[in-house]
């Protein structure tokens, strides 16, 4: 429904970032196993439980409490910014309605890295 608008905002954001960031660095390949592990953690109700709030490709019965997670590389050219969003969404938005997965140790640092790689691949 809002996908177009979301993509547009995302692209505009990306254009802004491109001015200050060096051209997208050649990607290091992330192994399919790693992406699978990240996906499993993101979808697991007792781990990331991201689907409770986010539409993610391949997820069932997804909530719409938060925005759909699409075109993540365009919106987060910088993987670290995405990781920070997952680690503690309150850094960017003090009124956030997303749990601070890293700060409150809902996920371990390694788990957050895995989830970040998976979300970044979307």
């Amino acid at each position, binding site marked *: 429904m809002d996908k177009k608008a979301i993509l547009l905002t995302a692209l505009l954001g990306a254009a802004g970032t491109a001015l200050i960031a060096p051209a997208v660095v050649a990607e290091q390949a992330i192994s399919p196993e790693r992406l699978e592990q990240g996906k499993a953690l993101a979808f697991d109700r007792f781990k990331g439980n991201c689907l409770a709030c986010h539409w993610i490709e391949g997820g069932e019965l997804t909530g719409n409490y938060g925005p759909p997670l699409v075109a993540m590389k365009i919106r987060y050219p910088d993987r670290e910014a995405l990781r920070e969003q997952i680690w503690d969404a309150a850094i960017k938005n003090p*009124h956030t309605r997303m749990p601070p997965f890293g700060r409150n140790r809902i996920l371990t640092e390694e788990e957050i890295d895995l989830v970040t790689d998976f979300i970044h691949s979307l």
Partner: protein
Amino acid sequence: MKKLIVACFLTVMMASAHATPEQDRLALRAFFQERFPKLDLNEMINGLYAFDEGAREQWLEMEDFPPYEIAIEEGEEAFNKPFANGKTYADCFANGGMGVKQDFPYFDVGTGEIITMEYAINKCRTDNDEEPLPWLVGELAQIAAYMAYTSRGNKMNVVIPDDPRALAAYEAGKEYYYTRRGQLEFACENCHMQSAGMMLRADRLSGMLGQATHWPVYRSKWGEIGTIQKRFQECNSQVRAKPYEAQSQEYRQLEYFLSYMSNGMELNGPASRR
């Protein structure tokens, strides 16, 4: 983390500094009317079904054979059964306990306590040398269901008397609703104001307005009728916060505040929810 909680708390409190309970209530109604311009706010006594046509149809079908009907019958029987000393519940309540739910919770000027309906039912028992009943489900919830049923159609009328302790209890309940807690750091308002009408997984979220009009509730997930404080505990657990004891001071204050927010709305308990 503490800093964050304090910061959030301050914004809320600042936004409503010196607001009277009545101003809070009107502001809440305005909030929901602005969020849902086409919604008849009176519909919010039906919780999530005010926002969800599909779920609403299924719910109305369920209401043809209300799953809480047995609880009302059992509650009526228990209500009318005399205590060992010959007295009955009717002796403990105004109007014999019939059609009085709209006045609960109330502030007892004598003891300074917030008296919820469940609290009053158990107090009636202990005053008459009977053992108190468990708070959340079972006979107590059934009696509350019967008493709520006799109050259907009345308008919620929670009073905050001119007593600083009553206002303090209301403010404490309000603070509870707006304070982030648990490992997930959510306040009640994050889900029931900012996200009302949205989906948390398969659950459509109800709004804060009208949340107190229809208790106790038969939930399919519980498979029985339960009190509002059972729901408080569940919502606390959901964000991995430690729930308070049923009928603790904190929960009675929370219920006092939440019920005041529903003032003027029609009582429609007991109700069913998925």
